[in-house]
């Protein structure tokens, strides 16, 4: 190796290092939220006696703090029903976020279904898809009873058999091979 070539390689190596020292931290800075687990917020939604097995009670809960209306969403809460193989001591909190494109669905009392206004997605009483384009049942929120209050916590998604998985975005299938095609994200807490 000639002296000229050695210097040329060294200068380019130093230049590359100096560039990487600026670019890599900046990229990491921008990517940080992908690996940052979101803050878990538990919201009290009412006393256990407020909820029945046969219908839902809607509650507006905050899932992102300090951003006003943007950070709010609706949870439909009921008591577990033994007829549906659920424990009556447990509470079921269904997210109103449609599993198709993320529009807000509404529980229609007369039909006993969740209906989405955007593209006609229909879900049954448990949130399983019975019509339209959604790819999986409605998401749920973890629930717990503390200080005499039912509390609604972090979101999780379910498979078509209602087995809990880590929260997915709308439009992503769950269960089987889909759990690898749409891998779980570190930004959401693990399922119950």
């Amino acid at each position, binding site marked *: 190796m000639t002296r000229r070539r050695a210097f040329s390689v060294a200068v380019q190596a130093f230049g590359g290092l100096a560039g990487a020292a600026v670019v890599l931290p900046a990229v990491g800075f921008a990517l940080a*939220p992908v690996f940052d687990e979101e803050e878990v917020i538990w919201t009290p939604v009412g006393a256990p006696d407020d909820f029945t097995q046969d219908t839902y009670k809607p509650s507006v809960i905050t899932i*992102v703090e300090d951003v006003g209306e943007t950070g709010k969403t609706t949870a439909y809460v009921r008591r577990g029903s033994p007829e549906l193989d659920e424990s009556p001591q447990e509470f079921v909190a269904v997210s109103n976020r449609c599993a198709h494109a993320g529009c807000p669905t509404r529980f229609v009392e007369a039909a006993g279904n969740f209906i989405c206004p955007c593209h006609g997605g229909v879900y049954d009483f448990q949130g399983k898809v019975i019509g339209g384009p959604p790819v999986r049942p409605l998401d749920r929120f973890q629930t717990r009873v503390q200080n005499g209050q039912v509390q609604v916590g972090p979101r999780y998604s379910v498979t078509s058999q209602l087995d809990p998985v880590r929260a997915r975005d709308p*439009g992503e299938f769950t269960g089987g091979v889909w759990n690898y095609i749409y891998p779980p994200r570190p930004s959401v807490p693990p399922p119950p």
Partner: protein
Amino acid sequence: MRFPQTLIPAPLRRPAPPGEKAPGDGGPVERAKQAPADVVGWVDERTGASGFLTGMLYRKVPKGTNWFYTLGSATLFAFTIQALTGVFLAMYYTPSPTEAYDSVTHLTNDVFLGEFVRGMHKWGATVMIIVIFLHMGRTFFFGAYKYPRELNWVIGVVLLILTLVMGLTGYLLPFDQRSYWATVVANNITATGPVVGPYLADFLRAGPEVGGTTIQRFYAIHMLLVPGLIIALIGAHLYLVVKLGTTAPPWLRGETKPKSLRREEV
């Protein structure tokens, strides 16, 4: 009508035909008229820009060049309007989930000519998308993407995608119901890409839900990252246009064979 030669600085003038005297060696009045040209000459002596500029301004265009060839300039003009009005909108806009909507309402309703400047930006965005597609169609149907201009087509496609990214990120900024839900849906569509989709959506949203950082992130992408890339790529795009020249429309035949060339049967 010819543009008066004395108004064009000497280095930028079309060179006088051989044997003809170049204008500009008269009395004091003529000298005074020459002053702007002298200033340009001073700059030119130190930059040598005139060679590049005359090459660019007096370049040959093929026969048959028509109004369709202005669509590229129209796109550039639309981008310039977006850049200019965007700078002024940024003076009143607040990229925060609680204040964005109010700041847009304020600049539209209260600020002098605010509605007009915002309107230019809003409608200009639509115009830019329309003319960029027309420009792309012109290039396609005139066959102007063919050798040696393939690279310019590729750069143009990247510019088209960046323009669409501008449309997507700009749509969130008014932060009304329409922009909020459009962004929610756009993010969810991004998330349905296999394997990388979920992470890409998390990157765009800065987390699993649309929140405070999302709008700041979209704002930074909309006014700093993508415009910088667009300006750089427009530079490369124009360089190649000047370097390679434009194509004749496809309905013009090539030069027919000169008569002096004959096929001889022996």
